């Protein structure tokens, strides 16, 4: 079972965001911190922490951090 808050904290770490708290509604691609490194890190972190692999094609459909949480939970 994925803990949404824990996932958001992991994303904050990847994006190196310390001055604010990310919400599930956040459209991650619109964040100035989002980058190709952030993308690769997110995919690798999800594999590492949740044992879930989200394909590039599926990931492209995801818009918000909440979408990622749902995608992980559907695949667990």
């Amino acid at each position, binding site marked *: 079972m994925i803990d949404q808050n824990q996932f958001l904290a992991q994303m904050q770490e990847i994006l190196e965001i310390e001055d604010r708290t990310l919400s599930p509604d956040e459209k991650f691609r619109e964040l100035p911190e989002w980058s190709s490194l952030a*993308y690769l*890190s997110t995919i*690798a972190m999800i594999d590492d922490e949740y044992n879930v692999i989200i394909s590039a094609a599926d*990931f492209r459909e995801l818009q918000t951090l909440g979408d990622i949480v749902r995608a992980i939970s559907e695949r667990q």
Partner: protein
Amino acid sequence: MTSTYNPMDLTGKVILVTGASSGIGRAIAIECSKLGATCILTARNMERLQETLASMEGEEHTIIPADLTDSAAVVSLVEQLPKLDGVSLNAGIEKMILCSYAKIREVHELFDILYFSVVDLVTQLIKRKKIRQISSLVMMSSIASDCHGLGNGFYGAAKAALSHYSLDLAKELHSKGVRFNTVRPGMIVTPLTMVDRGEDFIEKDKKRYLYGRYGEPEEVAHLAAYLLSDAAVWITGSEFTIDGGVSVR
């Protein structure tokens, strides 16, 4: 019919091509056959090796399927080979691995295929005297061996090790007349590389190339065939970049 001048003619040469089931290896096998060589094709997948064979010219080519990461399979392959005039080493995989999330098993897998399997095969070829006095070995490296793309570090490190190995071989075996050279392609359109890399990676990445596109396997095959031919007789211990100008800074 008058004979046509062609310094890259490979008539009469016997060439082993690894990774011949797809991509660059397949293109090299086809190109060598068009230049008159007799090829021995190897890779793991018999069906795809037969597809390569179907696209080749000439009737003398043979297929010996083998998993080159399996030492026993390498010995068995080498025992079945005739004397060779050329070897084109292309077997490979690609895997994006970030340093922060590296799984040692995946790093080993990259090195097993890209580096250790080549060392194993070349050592067996030398030991069992399968390489003729005057011959040419061409290793498929990558510009990743000294460019640092995100997630490409371990792949690049394995290719750098391969490049280093090729130079060592050139030095060690020059008196036997064996030439060793390395080809370093940029991104080439093959089933191995054209996987979905996420977001708009490929569209953005292509723009870095001076020609605005990736290379085709046939374009690399021409260079490999040249290095395998007698036209390159004074070339050994060299590395050749073929990358549509992406390295130009």
